[in-house]
């Protein structure tokens, strides 16, 4: 096990990693920007080094500053958390060159998975189902019709150069295709100077399902079940659950086998998450892989009893999965997580400032991961996540009732938080029934208006 680890992150995840290190007897080094001087991760680390001014580019994303801190503190390894430098292959390479162990996959694997198109091709080659689509740009209407009939309607046309919904058209039949093709192409040309289009299968009511993976450095890979993350607003997850009500044992086993095989081939190491879209027929399609620990990892920890961050540390120090994990891992109960953000619960405007009261709920099966505290300050420079509230119950109903109770006792004053919004979602019949997809928040907000 490492003697000393530097946590290259901030906020709740820095504290989470620090906690795992502490419990394993590893000395911890925190790095912080001037805006985070009074953060909990700084206060609770064995050593702390200021690495720059508030802006992330000058501090947390400043590779020389982070590496220099690692050198003067003489650490064995760096844990990058999530976000920030965690999926930066260059950073992983600099760590390697500086003789500091990067707790994550090798840089080559990070790089592969970071390039969306390459990752899709790698997964496709490994027989992981991917969202059917055109092989690159579509040259003509005829080709478009051909591809569409192979994929099956509905399809979506997307601009190669684009984003933000522009140059996109959903096509539901071959009669509509020619006009929509022209429309998308023209819009793209006007918006991005490039009218080239590609095509993908369109899923009307997709669900976002992701699988947790763990791999050691000796060629062993396993999965730790799935998480349901369809409750999202503008592609930001708000609520996550484990397991997913939509995943059958058979599907779970199929994906487990497929991912173990394919990630062993790719040479994956450490923790990761494979993200899928699920269509109305419960078929899963690969969209991307995140080569790091995820925000919502606690729901998987709750249903499996496995500490994923400790597993990361142990894997990185050379231990085998067979020594880290029990022989048989089963799903126990149901877990739900709410991401509590420092933002207005209705307007969603961010709310930085000083917290004047902070009462966290507790109790059986209630977990809070937070780096905030009373008299703490939420700086305006970083993302607005201030706490994760995770509950674990015998089944989804119990988890829901625990979450409702816990949310009602989570008192934060001085700043706005999304707690009230979560309370409304938990009261919503569609959410309670578990019958939702990634468009849930759109419908929910429309109902509420």
């Amino acid at each position, binding site marked *: 096990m490492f003697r000393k680890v530097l946590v290259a992150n901030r906020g709740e995840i820095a504290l989470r990693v620090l906690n795992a290190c502490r419990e394993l007897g590893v000395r911890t080094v925190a790095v912080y920007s001037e805006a985070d001087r009074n953060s909990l991760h700084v206060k609770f680390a064995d050593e702390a080094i200021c*690495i720059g001014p508030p802006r992330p580019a000058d501090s947390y994303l400043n590779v020389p500053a982070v590496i*220099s801190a690692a050198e003067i503190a003489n650490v064995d390894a760096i844990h990058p958390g999530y976000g920030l430098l965690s999926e930066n292959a260059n950073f992983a390479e600099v760590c390697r060159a500086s003789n500091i162990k990067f707790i994550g996959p090798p840089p080559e694997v990070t790089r592969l998975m970071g390039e969306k198109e390459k990752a899709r091709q790698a997964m496709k080659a490994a027989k992981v189902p991917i969202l059917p689509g055109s092989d690159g740009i579509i040259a003509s209407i005829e080709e478009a019709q051909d591809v569409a009939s192979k994929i099956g309607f509905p399809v979506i046309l997307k601009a190669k150069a684009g984003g933000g919904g522009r140059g996109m058209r959903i096509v539901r039949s071959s009669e509509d295709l020619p006009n929509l093709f022209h429309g998308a192409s023209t819009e793209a040309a006007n918006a991005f100077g490039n009218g080239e289009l590609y095509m993908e299968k369109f899923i009307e009511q997709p669900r976002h399902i992701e699988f947790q993976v763990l791999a050691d450095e000796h060629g062993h890979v396993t999965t730790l079940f799935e998480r349901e993350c369809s409750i999202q607003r503008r592609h930001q997850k708000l609520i996550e659950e484990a397991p997913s009500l939509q995943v059958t044992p058979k599907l779970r086993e199929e994906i487990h086998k497929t991912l173990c095989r394919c990630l062993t081939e790719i040479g994956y190491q450490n923790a990761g998450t494979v993200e899928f879209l699920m269509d109305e027929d419960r078929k899963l399609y690969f969209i991307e892989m995140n080569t790091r620990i995820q925000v919502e990892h606690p729901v998987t920890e709750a249903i499996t009893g496995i500490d994923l961050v400790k597993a990361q540390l142990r894997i990185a120090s050379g231990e085998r999965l067979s020594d880290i994990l029990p022989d048989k891992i089963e799903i126990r109960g149901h877990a739900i997580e709410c991401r509590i953000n420092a933002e207005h619960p209705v307007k969603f405007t961010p709310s930085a400032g000083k917290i004047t009261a902070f009462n966290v709920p507790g109790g059986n099966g209630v977990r809070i991961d937070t780096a905030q505290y009373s008299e703490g300050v939420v700086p305006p420079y970083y993302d607005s996540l201030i706490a994760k509230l995770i509950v674990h119950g015998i089944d989804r109903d119990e988890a829901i009732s625990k979450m409702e109770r816990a949310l009602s006792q989570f008192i934060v004053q001085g700043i706005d938080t999304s707690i009230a919004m979560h309370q409304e979602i938990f009261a919503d019949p569609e959410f309670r029934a578990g019958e939702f997809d990634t468009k849930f928040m759109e419908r929910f907000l429309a109902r509420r208006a």
Partner: protein
Amino acid sequence: MKPQDMKDLRELIEFLKEYQVAEFDLDRGDTKIRLKFSQPAAASAGIADIAKLVTAVPVASAAVAAPSSAAPPQSASAEPAADPDANLHIVKSPIVGTFYGSPSPGSPPFVSPGDHVEKGQVICIVEAMKLMNEIEADASGEVVKCLISNGQPIEFGQPLFSIRVG
């Protein structure tokens, strides 16, 4: 904890307080000690002290911190309250690394107290990732004090020199 251990621990704490030791490590197997003395710091009391206090450890293992004058861990996060002189400008480090006062080991320092420096003049080196970065004075005046010892690890914003401007 055994009564004798408690007695030892009490004596140790008194010793640390008397000498204003802010941080103290001890490894035991083949010994290995590390002491850090507290700096005159506007210590942010509260959680920092509480966190250190509750890490009371049996003598046979790692870190014990003096509860009273607890300076914040490693980082000189406080302003150097040492000198109230209004003309005093503090040159702070723009990077993380290791401080060197001279261009090479054994050679005379770039500047000494009493020297006049011009803005832009190189006053020290901070080594980071094997690169020697020359740090320039960002004000002109007389060097009052060097606040860091040679070879000391420093963080972003760490006070390096005080200069009387003018």
